[in-house]
């Protein structure tokens, strides 16, 4: 187990480094950062001065190593738009996005576990087909459009929830639904497939033959085993949800990392943009690492692979 963790950790660090290089190059190769910082209509002497001050005139590898060193020490540079240090700006928003991500994950699991179990227990019945139809339809609806539909229903027609903003728990309801429903179909399919497999296993037959009530067999014996692969998917999906928060937070003006990312992109605030791309990628790397380790712990067969 120790060897496996070490190997997996090494891979995670290598991936994080590769991601940092891409995040660095993405912004450097796509335009002159000095011109971007100077703004429109800047004189060429000014641009030259900025190039010197920020060190943009040195070779790229040198700039990369220096940038990486600063980033690792928690210095993400200066926000061009907000005129403050980027790191505190970004970390202040991280909590909102984490809360949104976890709530969405919980919402997705809350609808997909019962539906997945029902679809498996009543396999090939109309219930199963209805669940499948819901999954296919759910994936077909663009999430930004779904978000607008939620606003029409809950804010305009029913007047239950605020259209946008942040601060109270009400502000999280619609973003959670809009983000979470998108992750639900993947869980539902996985739980359905897992339950079908488990329900055919011998120990379930034994449990049934002993005369245990059906509900107890399904939830205590079967679901516990069918849910194991869900743990791995949950970590990966949380990463996707954090990425998807860009669209959803922007629509609801929810003041998290995703909204900040959108603002930094529209204001061409490169240091903030770059840091958020890097931060979200590293979070994803950590999540997949955690999920792999959890899986190896739950299923010893993986450790040898």
């Amino acid at each position: 187990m120790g060897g496996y963790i070490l190997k997996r950790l090494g891979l995670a660090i290598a991936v994080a480094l590769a991601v940092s290089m891409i995040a660095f190059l993405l912004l450097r190769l796509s335009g002159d950062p000095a011109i971007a910082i100077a703004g429109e209509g800047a004189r060429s002497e000014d641009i030259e001065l900025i190039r010197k001050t920020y060190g943009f005139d040195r070779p790229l590898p040198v700039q990369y190593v220096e940038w990486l060193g600063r980033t690792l020490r928690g210095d993400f540079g200066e926000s061009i738009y907000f005129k403050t240090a980027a790191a505190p700006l970004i970390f202040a928003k991280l909590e909102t996005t984490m809360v949104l991500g976890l709530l969405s994950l919980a919402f997705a699991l809350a609808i997909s576990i019962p539906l997945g179990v029902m679809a498996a227990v009543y396999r090939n019945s109309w219930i199963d087909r209805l669940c499948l139809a819901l999954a296919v339809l759910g994936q077909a609806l663009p999430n930004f459009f779904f978000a607008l539909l939620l606003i029409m229903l809950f804010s305009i027609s029913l007047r239950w929830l605020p259209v946008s903003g942040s601060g109270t728990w009400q502000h999280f309801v619609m973003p959670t639904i809009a983000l979470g429903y998108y992750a639900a179909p993947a869980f539902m399919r996985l739980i359905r497939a897992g339950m079908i497999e488990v329900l055919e296993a011998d120990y379930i037959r034994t449990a049934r033959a002993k005369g245990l009530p059906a509900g107890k067999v399904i939830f205590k014996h079967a679901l516990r085993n069918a849910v194991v692969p869900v743990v791995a998917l949950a970590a990966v999906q949380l990463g996707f949800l954090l990425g998807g928060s860009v669209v959803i937070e922007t629509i609801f003006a929810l003041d998290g990392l995703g909204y900040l990312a959108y603002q930094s992109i529209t204001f061409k605030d490169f240091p903030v943009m770059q840091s958020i791309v890097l931060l979200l990628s590293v979070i994803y790397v950590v999540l997949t690492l955690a999920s792999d380790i959890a899986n190896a712990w739950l299923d010893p067969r993986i450790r040898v692979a």
Partner: protein
Amino acid sequence: MIAAPGLWRRVWKNKAVVVGGALLLLIVFIALAAPWIAPYDPYGQDLANRNVPPFWYEQGSWLHPLGTDPLGRDYMSRLFYGARISLLIGISVAIISGLIGTTMGMLAGYFGGKTDMLVSFMVTTRLSMPVILVALATVALVGGSLWVVIMVLGLLKWDRFAVVMRSATQQVRSLDYVAAAQAAGASTARVLLGEVLPNVMPHLIVVATLEAASAILLEAALSFLGLGVQPPLPSWGLMISEAKSYMFFSFWLIALPGAALAILIFAINLAGDGLRDLLAPEGRA
């Protein structure tokens, strides 16, 4: 392999493929025939007739069956032309990312060892970067246009092609006819293109349909955020964005392009899921 006897009967019995395929054909027809079936010029503004509702509303009229947008452009014409953009995005992105991902996946699956490790590493790295965020940032840097969106998504979305093609190639690699071709002295390129590729084609088709659907959704989201296809092009995502501030009074302005997107994605996913059952049933999740 494709023309196996009874294939058409099996296709016909697979309701998902029939329904999804029929819907998709209808949308393709609309896209191709847009210049002839669209009632108006999709860019022609008529400022005297702005936000005219569709015919089923009281104030609606058959002059503009699906109404007009905030600039007085005929909505049905714009929706018809919008199908062209979505399909162009879906097909182009699937081709670009498919070429990249299939090449990587087949090389990894065929050679194994170091090549495989390198490709797996590239896939892992790519997967850890959120597509929408990287795409938004790139479009913001390079400037938004239809072709930029296609290139950015094409260069980002090869991961699933690589993963699926890798495992499909691994399964095919050790089969007799591949060994026979190698023994007959065929070059690596020839073995890969002549023997391996045709046999992993079913997987490729399934991934391509699902990736096309996902690319269309991503373009819509990018355009919705103003960092994708630019006005006045009638991208469905952009149309929703342009009508957003009118949605409280003219709900149909966002509902129609939203429904168009949902129907297209539904059709592609349905056909793709059905194709998976038909062509590559062992790959079902």
